[in-house]
């Protein structure tokens, strides 16, 4: 099968490597579903918008956790930084054009990511985990104390966001504009992350995750790579936070809280990390489940989620997508590999 021929494209290994970034047909499915949702459930677009924002946030976490192997419990720091950037600019009448506000939110979150990353990413493991948590807690407390600017515990509400492109109004009761806007931003961010993870840079992040010491030994500037990845991920999380603030027209301390950081981590583990689409599957599974469980068992719905998570952690370490991959392998095994 594999004749020892000359190096080049005829060998299966380089061919597989050269093909792995190609778009697969099934990758159209989530986007088609997202567009279909818009037409099928016009009354649930608020839920849909929240779902898309959550996917975007989980995607940013996947970049650091799933690819670079940075374990963080403080990713909401960047979500909140983005959300408060948009909120404070709008509330104080400084700037409320949605797209440029989002770019500012990304820049601010990236700056927080860069600053904290330069310090945090000197550490690893449990220390790193604790420090990410501390960074987020510090930001949350700062937002709580700076009442005059951030609204403190009450947050900032009734934000006036300018119409998108000067035309499309953000209507909180009928969030058609929000849904399509968030979908478009998610698509752009996803295209960026997807490009990044298949690039040599993404490959080197995988290398750091798989064996940090060896990456040092091949001359990789490991910390600089991690900081770069952390900063990019922070920027995307900041976009998610900023767009959440725009879509909901308010910001509160919850955007910076442990609840949000832990939830997004659960979502990513549930869907399967290091897989790009784990963010999609996890967010849908989590939000749909919590929606229905809350209806059926209004007092104990979190128990059901907790049980599911225990089952995933015990029996399916790679999440729902991991189960799918394992089943796919089982069914395709008897057939010849293409």
């Amino acid at each position: 099968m594999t004749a020892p021929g000359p190096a080049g494209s005829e060998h299966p290994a380089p061919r597989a490597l050269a093909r792995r970034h190609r778009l697969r047909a099934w990758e159209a499915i989530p986007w088609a579903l997202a567009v279909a949702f818009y037409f099928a459930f016009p009354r649930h677009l608020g839920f849909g918008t929240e779902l898309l924002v959550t996917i975007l946030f989980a995607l940013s976490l996947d970049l650091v956790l799933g690819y670079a192997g940075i374990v963080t419990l403080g990713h909401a720091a960047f979500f909140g930084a983005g959300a408060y950037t948009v909120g404070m600019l709008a509330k104080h009448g400084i700037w409320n054009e949605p797209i440029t506000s989002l770019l500012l939110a990304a820049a601010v979150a990236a700056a927080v990511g860069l600053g904290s990353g330069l310090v945090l990413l000197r550490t690893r493991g449990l220390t790193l985990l604790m420090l990410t948590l501390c960074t987020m807690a510090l930001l949350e407390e700062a937002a709580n104390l700076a009442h005059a600017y951030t609204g403190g515990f009450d947050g900032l509400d009734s934000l006036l966001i300018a119409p998108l492109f000067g035309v499309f109004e953000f209507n909180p009761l009928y969030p058609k504009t929000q849904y399509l806007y968030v979908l478009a931003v998610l698509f752009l961010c996803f295209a960026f992350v997807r490009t990044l993870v298949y690039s040599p840079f993404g490959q080197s992040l995988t290398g750091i995750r798989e064996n940090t010491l060896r990456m040092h030994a091949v001359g990789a500037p490991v910390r600089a790579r991690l900081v770069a990845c952390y900063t990019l991920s922070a920027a995307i999380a900041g976009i998610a936070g900023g767009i959440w603030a725009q879509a909901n027209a308010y910001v509160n301390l919850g955007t910076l809280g442990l609840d949000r950081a832990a939830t997004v981590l659960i979502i990513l583990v549930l869907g399967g990390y290091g897989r790009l689409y784990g963010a999609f599957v996890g967010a849908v599974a989590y939000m749909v489940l919590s929606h229905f469980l809350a209806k059926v068992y209004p007092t104990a719905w979190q128990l059901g989620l907790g049980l599911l998570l225990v089952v995933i952690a015990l029996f399916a370490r790679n999440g729902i997508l991991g189960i799918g991959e394992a089943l796919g392998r089982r069914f395709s095994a008897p057939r010849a590999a293409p």
Partner: protein
Amino acid sequence: MSPPSAPPGPPLLETRGLCRNFGALAAARDIDFRLEAGARHAVIGPNGAGKTTLVNLLTGVIRPTAGAVLLKGRDITGVVQAERVKLGIARTFQINRLFRGLSVLENVYMAVAERRGVAPSMLRPAGLRRDVVEESMHLLETLRLPDDAGHRISELPYGRQRLVELAIALGLKPEVLLLDEPAAGVPSAESHIILEAIAGLPKQIGVLIIDHDMDLVFRFAERITVMVSGGVFASGSPKEIAANPDVRAVYLGRADHG
């Protein structure tokens, strides 16, 4: 002119008075060591003699307590590991340190991409960097590994994994190659592939090999340094070392080798 054993100019790699203490333990004691370009040099010594500490000092994994490391006459004592790699010092590890979840090709790709400065690029897909892929495949061919290129490391027998260790180091195109027990853990039935690979290394590379395996050392080395308790105990040609009664007493006698 100088005699051929001591070529003019500074040696490829040199240490001067190198010391490293771990608490009260002197893991390296006043080591003066020279590795010439194209050398095939072995460091032997009993367990705990400080051999791996020496490799870690040479590669910049740890800092010396005192003394200096010089590469072609330039003091690199303060240069960090990743920078030393760029200057041409590569190593393999006593225990495999590979990217176990990745394919053999991807493992080598990692080293070649770093050396070529491709790794920071974020836009073009990694698989389309033909220069990197082809160089990696070429390297795998010289080590007779091309058929394993698509296999994950975790699917390979240990001996072949050791070859991937070597392939990654060679992907860095080093001038100095430090091999820390290259045949460690390899079953004897497979060890010949390691020996052949070492024998086939490019001539111009200065190779330092650290090993317990006397067959490998005496077959491969043109010069041997014996370390005992962190210090250089003796140094010389394989014949001199084999004939040195002190060395036989502390080391070779126990290694069951005449």
